[in-house]
């Protein structure tokens, strides 16, 4: 097997689950667990090597569209990376798939739907706005509104106290 194939192999295989009983003695299982963790940590490193995938784009606009799309999708294997930056072979395959679908005239929505049908919503970096994510998308707005209310009440309460009369002509050193 070529040395690149071996690197491929390291990526494709399932890295062991990172959780392991810490109480386990220092022996082969522990070493394997560490190796698995090391592989998991390494996966992003190997990213550039295969993430670089020159493709024959028709023009710059198409290239931009591809980059944009692959940056919005999560690699199902190296899960904290985008398809654009992951070196996992599945990312390589999916990029090729996206490219072919683009060339075949599919829209962005169709391409995303294709991937979601096979890999679930999880591959979208942008959570869809649907009832199960309302808390996510509207939560901050609610926090802002509630906070704004609190601030408004406090300010009004304050302003109703003795109104501040004199305003010094210049900023003095201490009261700027």
């Amino acid at each position, binding site marked *: 097997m070529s040395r690149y194939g071996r690197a491929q192999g390291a990526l494709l295989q399932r890295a062991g689950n990172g959780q392991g009983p810490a109480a386990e003695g220092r022996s082969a299982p522990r070493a394997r667990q560490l190796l698995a963790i090391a592989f998991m940590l390494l996966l992003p490193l190997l990213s550039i*090597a295969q993430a670089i995938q020159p493709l024959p784009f028709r023009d710059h606009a198409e290239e931009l569209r591809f980059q944009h799309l692959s940056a919005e999708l999560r690699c199902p294997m190296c899960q904290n990376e985008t398809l654009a930056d992951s070196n996992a072979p599945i990312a390589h395959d999916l990029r090729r798939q996206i490219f072919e679908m683009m060339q075949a005239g599919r829209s962005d929505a169709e391409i995303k739907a294709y991937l979601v049908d096979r890999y679930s919503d999880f591959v979208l*970096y942008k959570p869809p706005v649907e009832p199960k994510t309302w808390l996510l998308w509207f939560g901050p707005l609610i926090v802002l509104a509630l906070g704004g209310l609190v601030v408004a009440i*406090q300010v009004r309460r304050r302003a109703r106290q003795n109104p501040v009369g004199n305003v010094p002509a210049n900023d003095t050193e201490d009261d700027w």
Partner: protein
Amino acid sequence: MIPELGQFALVLALLLALVQGVLPILGAWRGNAALMAVARPAAAGQAVFVFLAMGVLIHAFLVYDFSVAYVADNSNLALPWYYRITAVWGAHEGSMLLWVFILNVWSLALAVLSRHLPTPFVSRVLGVLGLIGVGFLAFILFTSNPFLRELPMPSDGGDLNPVLQDPGMTFHPPVLYMGYVGFSVAFAFSIAALLGGELEQAWVRWARPWTNVSWAFLTMGIVAGSWWAYAELGWGGWWFWDPVENASFMPWLVGVALIHAQAVTEKRGSLPAWTVLLSLFAFSLSLLGTFLVRSGVLTSVHAFASDPRRGLYILGFLIVVIGGSLLLYAIRAPRVATGKPFAALSRETGIMIANLLFTTAAAMVLLGTLFPLIGDALNLGRISVGPPYFSFLFIALMAPAVLLLPFGPYLRWGSAEGRQLTTLALRAGIAAVICAIVAAFVAQGHLRAIAGIAGAVWVAAGTLSYILKRWREMPRGRRYPAEMAGMLVAHTGVAIFIIGVMLSESLSVERDVRMAPGDTQAIGGYVFRFDGVHETQGPNWRADEGTVTIQRDGTTMATVKPQKRTYSRGQVQTESAIDAGLFRDIYVALGEPMQATDVEGAWALRLYYKPFVRWIWLGGLFMMLGGFLAAGERRFRAKKAAATAAVPAKESLA
């Protein structure tokens, strides 16, 4: 040096921390001077033993003591000495020791520099820091001991993850921890104030420099981490809204709110409850970050190995510390509105609005980071939250803050003068619009670039306007007190940062290309010529090194050498080559040969042109500088005459 010495030192440190945590607080409660006097010596003692333990661990790495399991796991015979030191905090156990080490640095500094503070107050502050130390030292000794032996001793060790073998990694964790852990000081001050029922807000003046310095360190740590990711992770990204990054960003955001709230309470005596609450939040988020990274509750590119036992311990610790402090707040926080009143249009209100925006941003980041977990808990399936969510909402929340920013110095305390504000708004507004129009021509339809320039000019013009105002109106030597200079520098940093982010994000060009030796490629006005690949070597790696010549208008600007390294343990890593510049970076990464066996032939390369990307970190550095400057304010320094023994100093605020 025997590793067991290190372990023993930690045990002694734990005992001293216990003494430091319990006795002085008891003493302050009972007015017992002898018990209170224990605080400083106990803190010094704890520091000595923690420093000793750290020394023992560093020594173990330097002499290749593979009988220590942690050393064997994270270093090997080929690892250079400077990275063996980095390896000390490269994994979980060592990073916890670093946490405690930095906690002791801060405690020691506080013990030394607090002579002017009233004794009961200092006793409580050091006591709280002692209790925090107890929690962490116990955690280390019972679940994460770096001094455990591995027998039989292996002849060679594992390796420090190659991505961590970089100067950035040597620097980033200690600096970040200085910030993270530094918020414990503001926290301790607040707890001490709540415990002591301090009705005057003098303690806020004492807390300010400590908070500003912590925040500045945290800023520097985050900037270092971002820069390191850009240089090391190989594909031009500098922020990914990864859970661990978010864990450091949330305390930073709350820290910004805290710094401004402290200014209000210190100068005007108002809103003390908010100031206390924000300092509790800031440190709570620091602790939360520690939890998130180590419990395995969230997946992340750079999370430490997870272990449910450790996770539970930290969770228990969080409940005690944060829960306890919030309970104390509920019971003891000042209820009566104190301090000088203010009108609706005033700096106080402006700061309250800005703080609301920053706190909401922190809450948003927390929500997004935790939402996958919420999804699992509510059985909603695996929900993915990524940069599109965070960036969109962050910009939406920060935009009003950016609009508000230039008004800050112009808003008077108590009641602002409308006329000054409108003049400022017109000046800065016109400058921003003009620059935006120019940008529209140059950047041709890149909306983000135009918006970025408009926002940055708005902030910069407003800040400059105030700088000139002070120059005109104040006599020499009194124009820019340190606190104000800090504010102006930090606010300028915001403008620089906005330019960096918006321009690099919208105007960058990236291209994956196939190049044979001699081929050229044109990007962003530059011509890249690939000159082939040859083999080269380092202390613990071998590499394929490419040579790429970058030309502009016919003249050669730079020659960069991207590498693909294979480390002594077999890991492969890409070292991208960056030609850095103030106004643009050119970035080249080497991929694979197009034919796996033909190394002399064509290779895949990724080429980037990234304008203004360095301004992102430059902006951060300005903000950091501003923080340090502000901390140097004369008003905050110890007044020799005010040192008293048992009676809290009544300092005037005006």
